[in-house]
């Protein structure tokens, strides 16, 4: 395998990690909308740790190996329109996913606090956070950004 092969493989692996995190968080958020018992919420949100690892590895990996590829490959330049678009999408995605994390980490932390206080009856407060339109809209936006990322990488507009 050449260095280009390795870089491409690692870049794509990071992209898979990012999408896996998106799938996991979307799955969690949609599942969480039907929950209101604190122990159920705390339990299912144990999966979010896996998502955080995948998301961080994916975000760092796509950026580092993507920039390295743009430098390594003769036909690509860092200032190509589609590369700049990818960098902008990366920054917007990082911001949006951080906001999503704030909404649902609050739900997870509240659920854990209620469990610790032995208050395991259905909680309207918890349910309201989990059914928040803001969280859902932000997650939908992050999914759309990832899709735009993939479209940009494959179509390479302007290349």
């Amino acid at each position: 395998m050449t260095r280009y092969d390795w870089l491409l493989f690692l870049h794509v692996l990071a992209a898979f990690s990012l999408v896996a995190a998106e799938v996991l968080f979307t799955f969690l958020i949609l599942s969480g909308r039907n929950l209101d018992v604190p122990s159920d919420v705390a339990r299912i949100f144990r999966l979010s740790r896996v998502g955080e690892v995948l998301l961080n590895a994916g975000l760092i990996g796509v950026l580092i190996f993507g920039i390295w590829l743009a430098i390594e490959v003769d036909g690509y330049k860092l200032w190509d329109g589609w590369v700049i678009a990818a960098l902008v999408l990366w920054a917007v995605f990082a911001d949006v996913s951080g906001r999503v994390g704030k909404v649902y980490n609050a739900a997870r932390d509240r659920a854990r606090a209620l469990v610790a206080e032995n208050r395991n009856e259905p909680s309207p407060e918890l349910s309201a956070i989990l059914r928040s339109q803001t969280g859902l809209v932000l997650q939908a936006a992050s999914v759309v950004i990832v899709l735009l990322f993939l479209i940009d990488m494959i179509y390479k507009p302007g290349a």
Partner: protein
Amino acid sequence: MLAAIRPDSWNFPLLLHVVGATVLVGGLVVAVAAQFLGGRRPDDAAAFGRVAFRALLFVAFPAWWVMRVGGQWIYSKEGLDELDPEPGWVGVGFVTADFGGLLLLVSIVLGGLGARGLSRTGGESSLLARIATVLAAVVLVAYLVAMWAMTAKPD
């Protein structure tokens, strides 16, 4: 190394293939992670068994079809079906996609039966769910190997 710019008509089938493959791997990751967490705390086995089953059935299974249809489409577009012999990476792709699809189907059935058994009996572990976990993990590894073959394209 020159950048590989493909004809525009190849892009949509490739996008379908890639979106399907990435979501498929995502669904498998959710299922394997849920089964793993369920296995660590027996009290949670039933709840995580259901999560794993739903991830396989509602995420991984539809994504497999998108990946497979997109793969066949791009295979035909690129004229790989006219090559004799086929490159090795194409063979790796077909074997992992099709055999992996079969294993995925078996893991959905076993995972569903295991989750139902755990819910009904309130049991702490299920042999069927454990087998489903192992199968889903094998499929996940196979698809990561396929991903390597698709990107590195070894002869």
